[in-house]
């Protein structure tokens, strides 16, 4: 996994609430057996009309906006546990998602793929969404070490599990850690009847 320490970039505003993982990557694209290529189909049915034409109204198709930070409406990533959603967002180039609320499984999947989900207050999100919407060059600074988000709206601290923070900053994943606990796991198994 790639390390994540600090990011200075612009963002893309997506105010829709309850964006589910079926929207992030529709089920018909889940037939691949590797992790590559999902970025091409992120938000497929919002980016393209059914006839294959570009939907110019969708924010990812608006050239004004760009950057590796997605600013998303409340309860982002609800629904299916498909990690393909995280692979699609990472594949497209997103490294940070800012929202006022994340669905549980998605949040874990994002962290396991080097994407940092940052939860802010609904008021902060609303102001940031408006600011970036009207000024696409707004600079957003994410500092994982100090757990701080700096934007023209203000400096705000965000929470992250301390273990997950170490993983992100060093590019570790849970597999190595769990495998290193083999003896403890076997000792636990011996206590099971």
């Amino acid at each position: 996994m790639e390390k994540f320490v600090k990011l200075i970039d612009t963002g893309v505003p997506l105010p829709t609430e309850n964006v589910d993982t079926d929207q992030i990557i529709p089920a018909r694209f889940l037939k691949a057996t590797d992790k590559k290529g999902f970025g091409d189909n992120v938000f497929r049915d919002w980016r393209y009309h059914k006839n294959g034409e570009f939907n110019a109204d969708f924010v990812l198709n608006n050239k004004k906006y760009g950057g590796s930070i997605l600013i998303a409406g409340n309860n982002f990533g609800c629904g299916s546990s498909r990690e393909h959603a995280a692979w699609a967002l990472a594949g497209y180039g997103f490294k940070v998602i800012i929202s006022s609320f994340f669905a549980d499984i998605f949040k874990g999947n994002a962290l396991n793929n080097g994407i940092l989900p940052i939860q802010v207050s609904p008021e902060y999100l609303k102001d940031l969404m408006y600011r970036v919407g009207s000024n696409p060059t707004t600079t957003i600074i994410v500092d994982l070490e100090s757990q701080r988000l700096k934007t023209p709206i203000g400096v705000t601290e965000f929470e992250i599990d301390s273990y997950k923070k170490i993983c992100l900053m060093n590019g570790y994943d849970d597999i190595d850690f769990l495998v290193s606990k083999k003896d403890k796991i076997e000792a636990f198994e011996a206590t099971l009847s």
Partner: protein
Amino acid sequence: MGKTLFDKVWDAHVVDSVENGPQILYIDKHLIHEVTSPQAFNELRERNIPIARPNQIVATADHNTPTKNQHLPIKDELSRNQLEQLTKNCKENNITLYGLGHEYNGIVHVMAPELGITQPGMTMVCGDSHTSTHGAFGTIAFGIGTSQVAQVFASQCLLLPKPKKLRVSVNGKLKKGVLPKDVILYIIAQLGTNSGTGYFCEYAGDVFEEMSMEGRMTVCNMSIEMGARGGMIAPDQTTFDYVKGRKFAPKGEEFDKKVAYWKTLRTDEDATFDQEYSFRAEDIEPMLTYGTNPGMGIKISENIPTQNDVSFEKSLHYMNFKKGESLVNKPINYVFIGSCTNSRIEDFRIAANYVKGKQKASNVNAWLVPGSQQVAKQIEEEGLQHIFENAGFELRQPGCSACLAMNEDKIPEGEYCVSTSNRNFEGRQGQGARTILASPLMAAATAVEGKIIDFTKHLN
């Protein structure tokens, strides 16, 4: 202080705790399917890590399988490849696979309980958010991402912070025609789609105590639709009677020993929850969804709310519904009875009982997709097949089918589908398809009438 059902099962599975961090939770059973496992197998292969406990893993093919002519080779190359990968991965790693056509094949959350793989007090995971279904047995069961599938492959454990505890109680007596599906759709409509996020939910009260195991599975299945990773119901005599005698259930003395343990799992009187909600059974009616998330539900007697917000309006626009209107009399051309929510034998009995002696409306395509080969066999043995065939319904072969439209079973653009599945997201049942979630009884009534009706007026 007393412990909850959730505490008791969780605490019995903690291997170790990371300081200021997550806990290492031991997983008893790991269920896998073709869509969310291949990348996890690849990960372990690349890192040269063996599968830790292959005998605690059970595989099935369900998400991406055809529901017609399952004996023929799969036409779609990508789908065929995905199923072949599953077969190859299971064979290489000595994992039991109930593949297409096997007598135990079926939707992962239907086949595991009916084979007795699911048992009270266990921890179970699967790369599928509806793993919450198994909580009906008093099991900690939840959906995981593919990275976590790889973690369980590598260690039979997961690293997780302990979730908070939520209890939803429903007491009283349900009205006639109100099914477990209506109960859970009502709860989600009341609480919203993110009310359960960060929590594990226990369902308690008369209504759940009196429910069959099939009904309890329907309820726990949709816990994730209010954001809860899992739902649980305390195991009782109904649970023990269901588990007893199933293929992989403990037998004889071993079973009695287990039952004695399972009886200790109930939430203690003095245990506390982080959040509690309580509802009256009498307030619940047959439910329908009108929007694009499962929290957007109304009673059959209610009208669509009038709300001014962008996401709400976007949702109604997609559904082509108007604020303040009723769904009664809306013409419907597609009906789907299936999915891990409602594809068990009880669901087909309920539908058949309503359909018996009636005819499907000519405008309706009515698809019935059993949850497993075992359910399909029961439908045949109980004579339900004739009832459905005589009424003009199309009985297909088991699988996830039109619930997520990954295979060929798609609802056409712009069409409404009254569906017993669990998600009404945009495009969930096919690009541009409009899903209305409901119970098997509502679905059967819609198929017969060709439109939504308030069938409670015809019940005696």
